[in-house]
C-alpha cells in the first residue's frame, strides 16, 4: 500500500497528491511516469511524475478528473493509500546544455513540464517558460514555474488573468523576440501539443512532446500505447513518453486516445449516480 501524505486541490477538478513510494522516488527523473491502481478492482492508470523528493521518499502526482478512476482518486484523503504504485517508468527527459529553451505547459501539463524546466535550467540553459489555462482558476504552479525557469510568461484563453490568448500566441512572440531557440518542450492536451508542433515546425525548432497514451502494464508488454512516430510504430511506455513532436502522428494518437470513450462515460455515470437505495452508485 502506498500512502497519500499530502492532498491539495490546485483548481476545480485538478488535484495534487504526494504519495509515499521511496523506491520510486529514489530513481525518479524528469519526464518519467508512474502507474497506479486504487484498489483490487481498479484499472492501472499512468500519471506523469510532477515532482519527487528523494529524502521524504515521495512522488508528486497532479491529475485532472477525467474518468471514473481519476474521480475516485480525487475522493481519497491524506492518510489513505492506493493499492499499487509502480515506477519510475518510461525514458527520462534528455537534459543537456543547449542554450535557449522554451518549456510550454498547458492546463494539467504544467505539472510534468515543471521538473523538466527545472532540470534544464540547472543544466545551464536559459529556460523561457510559458504556461496557460482556459481560465484563471485553472491555472496553477505559477510560482513554482517562475522558480524553475529563467523567465515565465502566463496566458489564459479567456483573458481572465494576465492576458488573453493561447500558449501558441505567446510562443510565437517569444520565438520572434528571442530568436535562435534551441529546443521547445511542450506538454499539455493533445490539440495544444499539436498546435505548438505546427508552429515550431515553421520556425524549424526541434520540439519534444510527452504522450499520455492509454496503457495497461507500462513496461512494453501490451502494446496498447502504440503511436506512429516518423512512420514507425513506437510504444509510448518504453520508447517514450517523450517524442519528437514533428514526427508524431497526432491524428492517430487522438483517435486511439478515445477508444474506450463510451465505456468511460458509462463508468462515470455509474460513479456519479447516487440513489436512496444505499447502493452507493455502483461503488
Amino acid at each position, binding site marked *: 500500500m502506498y500512502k497519500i501524505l499530502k492532498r491539495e486541490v490546485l483548481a476545480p477538478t485538478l488535484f495534487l497528491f504526494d504519495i509515499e513510494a521511496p523506491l520510486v522516488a529514489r530513481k525518479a527523473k524528469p519526464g518519467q511516469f508512474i502507474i497506479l491502481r486504487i484498489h483490487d478492482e481498479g484499472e492501472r492508470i499512468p500519471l506523469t511524475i510532477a515532482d519527487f523528493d528523494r529524502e521524504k521518499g515521495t512522488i508528486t502526482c497532479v491529475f485532472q478528473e477525467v474518468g471514473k478512476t481519476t474521480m475516485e482518486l480525487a475522493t481519497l484523503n491524506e492518510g489513505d493509500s492506493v493499492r*499499487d504504485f509502480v515506477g519510475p517508468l518510461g525514458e527520462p527527459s534528455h537534459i543537456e546544455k543547449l542554450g535557449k529553451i522554451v518549456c510550454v505547459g498547458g492546463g494539467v501539463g504544467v505539472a510534468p513540464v515543471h521538473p523538466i524546466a527545472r532540470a534544464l535550467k540547472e543544466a545551464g540553459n536559459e529556460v523561457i517558460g510559458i504556461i496557460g489555462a482556459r481560465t484563471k482558476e485553472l491555472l496553477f504552479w505559477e510560482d513554482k514555474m517562475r522558480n524553475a525557469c529563467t523567465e515565465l510568461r502566463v496566458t489564459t484563453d479567456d483573458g481572465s488573468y494576465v492576458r488573453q490568448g493561447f500558449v501558441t500566441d505567446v510562443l510565437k512572440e517569444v520565438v520572434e523576440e528571442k530568436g535562435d531557440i534551441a529546443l521547445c518542450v511542450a506538454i499539455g492536451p493533445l490539440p495544444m501539443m499539436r498546435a505548438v508542433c505546427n508552429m515550431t515546425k515553421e520556425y524549424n525548432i526541434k520540439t519534444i512532446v510527452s504522450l499520455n497514451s492509454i496503457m495497461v*502494464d507500462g513496461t512494453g508488454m501490451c502494446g496498447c500505447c502504440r503511436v506512429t512516430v516518423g512512420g514507425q510504430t513506437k510504444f509510448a511506455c518504453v520508447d517514450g513518453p517523450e517524442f519528437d513532436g514533428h514526427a508524431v502522428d497526432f491524428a492517430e494518437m487522438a483517435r486511439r486516445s478515445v477508444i474506450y470513450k463510451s465505456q468511460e462515460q458509462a*463508468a462515470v455515470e455509474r460513479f456519479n449516480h447516487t440513489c436512496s437505495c444505499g447502493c452507493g452508485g455502483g461503488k
Partner: protein
Amino acid sequence: MADEKTGNKTIVPNKHPMPAQDAVVRAKNFNEVALGYNEETVVAEARRCLQCKKEPCRQGCPVEVDIPAFIKLAAERDFAGAIMKLKEKNALPAVCGRVCPQENQCEKYCTVGKKNEPVGIGRIERFCADWELANGVLPQKVAPPTGKKVAIVGSGPSGLTCAADLAKQGHAVTIFEALHVAGGVLMYGIPEFRLPKAVVQAEVQNLKKLGVDIQVNAVVGKFATVDELMEEGGFDAVFLGTGAGLPYFMNIPGENACGVYSANEFLTRTNLMKAYLFPGNDTPIRVGKKVAVLGGGNVAMDAARTALRLGAEESWIVYRRSKNELPARHEEAEHAEEEGVKFAFLTSPTKIIYDDNYWVTGMECLRYELGEPDASGRRSPVPVKGSEFIIDVETVVVAIGQGPNPLVPKTTKGLDCNKKGNIVANLETGATSKPGVYAGGDVVTGAATVILAMGAGRAAARSIHAYLSEK
C-alpha cells in the same frame, strides 16, 4: 491389483475421459473448461500405469518428476504421498497438471502409449495438486539458512520454480515482479477458463510458505538495475526470468487502427484485469461482433476462445498454414472448435481496413498454398497471386508471437544478447555472460511452454546453488 503384481494386467485401452463443461455453455462463461477427475477415476487412471522398469516417461519431463512413483501412490489412494512426491520436483503441480503439453512430454514416451492411449499423467498430477489445495497444504522441508541472497526477476513459471528450489536449499530468495500480482504469464496470459487464477495464487502462496519474499510493482531496470541489486541490494546471485512479453505485430497497414489488439493486451485486459467483469472491475475491453485472431498457437486459441466469451458472435482463427501445421496443442484447437471458433486456414492479412473514425471494419487477406519445408521444418506458405479478398471484422487480435522484453538487457552491463534480443545463456546451467547472473525461460529460448520455462528455472537453481556453495 493382483493382476499388476503378476504383470498380466489387462490394460484399459483409452484414457479415462476428462469431464468438461458442455461446449455450448462454457463458450459463454469464464469458468474452468476441464473439470478434473474424481477419486474413483484418478485411481482407475493411475492403475493403467504399468510401473514399468524403464520409466521412459521420466525422460520426457523437463522438471524431472518421479512420475511412476507419484502415480503408484495415487493408485494406492495415498494422495498426500503422491503430492509430496510431485512437489519434490515440481513447485507448480496444479498449474502443470492443467497447461503442460503432456502429449509432447511425459505421455509421449509412456510405455502404455505404444499400443494404447498413454496414461493420463497430467490429469493425475492435476488431481493430486487439487486434492492438496482442497485438503490443506502439506509442509515441505526447508534447509537451514545459508546466509546467501538471491534475486529472481520475474514471477512467471521459470522464476517461481527457480525460487522454490533455492528457498528449499536455505537461500534467502526475493522475487521482483513488474505487475501488481505474481505469476507472470500464468496470470496475464493464460485464461481463467484454462487455468483459474485462484489456482495460480494458491501455488504462489505455497512458495511464500517456503520463505520466498515476493515484491510486486517492482520493475527491475527501472527502480533498480541488476548491478544495483548485486552491489547495493546485497544479492549474491540473480536469476532473470523476464519472459517473452514484447508483442510482435504484422507490420501491415492499418495495424494501429482502433480495434486491433496484441494478444498480450487482449489477454491481459481479460485475465489479469478481469475486463469481463466491467463495469464491476474498472478495466474496459471492446469486442466487435466478428473477431479475427491472427496466428495458430496456443495464445491464438486462447484469444479466439476469450473473444467468444466476451460476446463476439463469430471468432475466427486466421492462419497462413493448414490445420496440420497448427502450432497449438491439439486439445486446445479441439476445445476452440467445439466452442464455435472458426478457422480460416491458408489465409493471411495484407492490410487492416478502417472507417473515418479509425475503427476496424475489415481485413484484406491473401490465400496461401503450401510449398517446400522451411527452416522450421514446416511447409512454407506461399501467397496465391490475385487471391485478395476481404473479410468483415470489427476486432483483430494479433497473436503471432512475442519477443523478449528489453528492459533488463538494456540496463544491465555485460549481459550478452543475441540479434533477437534474447539473453544468451547456457541451456544446461542458465549461466549468462555476467558472473552471478543466470537466465532461463522465454527470455532465453523465445516463446515456449510453461514446463520448459520451469525446467530452465530448475536448471538455473541447481547451478546457482553450486555457485553460492563455492562463493
